[in-house]
């Protein structure tokens, strides 16, 4: 518990900054929406845009003049923000001990390596959940004036499940790389690279039908906001796949960290 609390404290400032980013994004995004809402001209402009560009920004599937449609578009960007946060906190919370040379302190205390990283992972998950709550609350407060219906709130709630799955996937990828890479200092950048590559893979699949298999590689394709809106549910198969990825990454992370030589 003491490690968990210390990590929460140590990450508090970063969490505030990330929260600030999502709140700012939410406010700006929904302020823009006031110009789109029930605006037929906007619809015409969007219709005249090339479909490829629209799909790149995930705008083709949604009617941007409705709140649901608008949130569907915002969702993609929020996904990117929370997964980048998750990947950084997952890798950082592990590798900082070696980078800051504090392993000679933290790992000469009477605790096992398992306990240390378990507490750290819990602290990282806690940070992710807080960020989700910040999104949920700031979204709720900033859409109130548009008087959203019940479906909107269900849509948002279900999308949180999808976001959480994605956060956990990238958090555990970050943990795995920080635990397993010899060049642990590059773990964060490597994890972000994986994140961006899979993100662009998910966008490319929208342009062409030939790269269909990317769907199964890119976690960003696991949860499609369009089907979340239509079905008001996430595809349980992809939740299970996410869980599988998390388990595999964590097992890999734990085993490599337990075997690892920690130098200063």
């Amino acid at each position, binding site marked *: 518990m003491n490690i968990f609390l210390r990590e929460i404290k140590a990450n508090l400032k970063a969490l505030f900054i990330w929260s600030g980013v999502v709140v700012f994004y939410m406010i700006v995004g929904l302020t823009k929406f006031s110009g789109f809402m029930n605006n037929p001209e906007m619809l015409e402009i969007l219709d005249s845009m090339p479909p490829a560009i629209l799909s790149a920004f995930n705008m083709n599937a949604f009617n941007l003049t409705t709140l649901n449609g608008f949130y569907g578009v915002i969702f993609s960007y929020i996904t990117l923000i929370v997964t980048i946060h998750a990947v950084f906190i997952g890798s950082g919370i592990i590798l900082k001990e070696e980078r800051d040379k504090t392993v000679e*302190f933290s790992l*000469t205390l*009477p605790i096992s390596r398992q306990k240390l990283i378990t507490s750290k992972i819990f602290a990282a998950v806690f940070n992710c959940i807080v960020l989700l709550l910040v999104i949920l609350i700031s979204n709720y407060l900033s859409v109130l004036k548009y008087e959203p219906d019940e479906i909107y709130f269900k849509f948002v709630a279900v999308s949180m499940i999808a976001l959480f799955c994605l956060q956990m996937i990238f958090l555990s990828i970050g943990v795995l790389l920080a635990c397993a890479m010899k060049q642990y200092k590059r773990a964060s950048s490597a994890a972000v690279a994986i994140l961006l590559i899979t993100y662009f893979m998910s966008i490319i699949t929208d342009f062409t039908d030939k790269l269909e298999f990317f769907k199964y590689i890119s976690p960003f394709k696991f949860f499609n906001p369009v089907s979340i809106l239509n079905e008001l549910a996430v595809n349980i198969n992809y939740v299970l796949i996410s869980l599988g990825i998390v388990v595999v990454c964590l097992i890999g992370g734990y085993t490599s960290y337990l075997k690892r030589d920690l130098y200063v």
Partner: protein
Amino acid sequence: MNVIEINNLTKYYGKSRGIINVSFNISEGEIFGFIGPNGAGKSTTIRLLLALIYPTKGNAKIFGKDCIKYGPEIRQEIGYLPSEVFYYDKMKVIDLLKYSASFYKKDCTERLHELAEIMELDLNKRIDDLSYGNKKKVGIVQGLLHKPKLIILDEPTSGLDPLMQQKFFDLIRLENQNGATVLFSSHILGEVQKLCTRVAIIKEGQIITVEDIKTLQENNYKKIKVKGKYITEEHFNMDGVSNLHKNEDAVNFFYKGNINQVLKIISSNLISDVLIEEPTLEEIFIHYYR
């Protein structure tokens, strides 16, 4: 009873040598010195004992238990002071020490404040505002606050002023009198001689000798330099002299044995200067343990 038992401990970092077949025991209540030049493998040995790194071969036991397998359990009773201390920079000294204390199964608050007072440590400063020496003091308090049965010191005195060094040595002696076993690693022969009862000398990853400090002192070589116009190497052609060579008008050599005999020879000759000193550790390695 042996507090530390090291058996053929070997560590390679990839292909480069860490330590090779290191074996020695430390019994309860000893202050055991561990000396060798930088890069000889002192810190590697200590990090293996603390399970920070894993051995390539061999094993080590602390309190009779394997130091890797029972690491967390035996570390309850180990106090460790690394050669360079690194703590979480953003924390206040007192918070860090309390955090450290929270891992031990006993109440350390009283001892924490006692030690901080002895070491004149300001508890309310932030770690990153501390000087190198003051960080070292935090390390000393952190390493001793749980009254460990085994104290492992890795070049502990660097960064401490002479006054603090003295206080620190007194503290270690006191801990030792109260029953703590001490492993003291250093490259400064003087401080090891002052404090330790037994020493292991390590060179290029291998233990050269494990000896009582008394034997070491009796066997101690003196480094002698005699200056004089008429002095020659032949004057010192006697037992116990080694590495004899003449350099301009001075004769240099190492001497081991009764100091009176060599003084007699020196005083029976006309000389202009004489210098008798302790050889440096380096020189011991080169001449004593060849």
